[in-house]
């Protein structure tokens, strides 16, 4: 790993190496440099072509710039929904994973059906379920004589969206967390137990911290997907990013501009998240053999 960062044209001065080996090493270095250069060129060309295409089809950039502040005003809702939903999903995922691994039949069956039901139904249906079907349950309960629940079961759009996304992603992440926990070698639990730890101490101190390291990439994946799926709350009339873009685009018959713009905004957010993920991964990898 070391030489890829320090090589930059520096002649390899290794004493005691025959000249032909020296030449081979230089050849390898030159190949690497060429590859890096060509890769940068390829990206540059690709970006230029895409930008050129946008100009050729006559994109109205002035129109785009004019509406940027209005569209961006929706970013608050997008971030609010995403962060609260992912927090809820993380809590549910840990509880769900423990339930899936539990030997308690009640907990295990609850967790297993949660994952199965939620993963097996479309998110779109779930969003509507929380928003427009739940009040009906409230009404039925009222009819059964439990007064005062109707209001509790009638959720405003944003809480309904957060619950829908959080519960749905929690189910997917349950399986991620479970797999992460199961990926830790049995010897780790045995070593913890041999020290006299209880099961929960072993889970908290030994298994879970190691599992977290394994599941950071898939969880980041979920988070990135969540940012984009948060646009589903626009179905309930929340003025978040994509809702605004679609509204403006339709009104002015310039949907292309608005959609490209909102797509770029999502992409930038996800790109930033990816950078955060890399930072966290690097931090988590300390002490890891693969990182050294």
């Amino acid at each position, binding site marked *: 790993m070391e030489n890829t960062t320090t090589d930059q044209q520096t002649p390899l001065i290794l004493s005691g190496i025959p000249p032909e080996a020296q030449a081979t090493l230089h050849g390898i270095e030159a190949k690497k440099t060429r590859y890096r250069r060509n890769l940068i060129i390829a990206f540059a060309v690709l970006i230029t072509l895409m930008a050129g295409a946008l100009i050729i089809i006559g994109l109205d950039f002035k129109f785009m710039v004019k509406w940027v502040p209005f569209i961006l005003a929706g970013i608050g809702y997008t971030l609010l929904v995403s962060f609260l939903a992912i927090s809820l999903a993380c809590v549910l995922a840990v509880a769900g994973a423990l339930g899936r691994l539990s030997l308690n039949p009640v907990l295990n069956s609850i967790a297993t059906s949660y994952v199965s039901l939620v993963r097996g139904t479309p998110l779109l249906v779930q969003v509507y379920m929380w928003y427009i079907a739940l009040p009906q349950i409230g009404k039925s309960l009222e009819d059964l004589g439990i007064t005062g629940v109707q209001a509790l079961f009638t959720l405003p759009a944003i809480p309904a969206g957060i619950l829908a996304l959080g519960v749905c992603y929690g189910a997917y992440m349950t399986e991620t967390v479970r797999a992460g926990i199961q990926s830790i070698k049995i010897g*780790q639990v*045995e*070593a913890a137990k041999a*020290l*006299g*730890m209880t099961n929960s101490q072993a889970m908290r*101190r030994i298994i879970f911290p190691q599992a977290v390291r394994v599941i950071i990439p898939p969880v980041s994946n979920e988070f990135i997907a969540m940012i984009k799926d948060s646009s589903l709350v626009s179905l309930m009339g929340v003025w978040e990013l994509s809702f605004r873009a679609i509204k403006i685009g339709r009104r002015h018959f310039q949907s292309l501009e608005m959609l490209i713009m909102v797509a770029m905004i999502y992409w930038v957010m996800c790109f930033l998240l990816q950078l955060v993920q890399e930072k966290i991964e690097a931090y988590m990898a300390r*002490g890891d053999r693969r990182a050294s």
Partner: protein
Amino acid sequence: MENSNPMVKITNVHKVFNRKHHVLCGIDLEVNSGETIVILGPSGSGKSTLLRCINLLEEPTAGSIEVDGTVIHAGENSNQRDSQILDIRKKTGMCFQSFNLFPHMTVLENIIEGPVTVLKQQQNQAIPYAEELLDWVGLTEKRDEHPSRLSGGQQQRVAIARSLAMKPKIMLFDEPTSALDPELIGEVVEVMERLAKEGMTIIAVTHEMHFARDVADRVLIMEDGSWLEEGTPEQIFSRPKHQRTRQFLTHILQ
């Protein structure tokens, strides 16, 4: 040596895996305080299973295990059972063939993990003794490294220090040198030897013949889940009674 009260007393222990593999067939064993026992035997004979039954990493199918006065009867369900099992594990240190150090912690954190999490000591309370142990296994300079930076022999010595941090009454060694490169075996055996000399009660499953011959007080040979032969190292290595013992010894001594 008071024979009245052995440190470890195993009575008629059976272990059956998956309803069909009868791995231990009525094992009895008494180990006195300060004694060093080496268990030898062909692979699959049940040595490791017996060792893992002593600290209840495996639950015996029948029989009883007594460690330093705490008794567990197989198949019995009582309210204090879980806490008794934890009690036995606290009094018992164990070293594994694959070390099983905690990779997300530094060497020092590995060693204080037991005292801090299990014995509820304060970190700064646990550190001086951990450092003492680290010095004792000769790895003071590795204090803040992660285990992946250490050689196998160093990892196993840290694992020994980690077990000793719990101040156990007895140490179990489950083939502690089998995963090591030949040149690293010596440093681990040397630590085990010093431990034996300091009066620790040791039960070791090992094919390290020097340890068996020169350090052990007693050597037991296991075959197919039962004792084949038992005696002082002198007896076992110089004049074994059984033909099978002789065969096994010539096989591992080449």
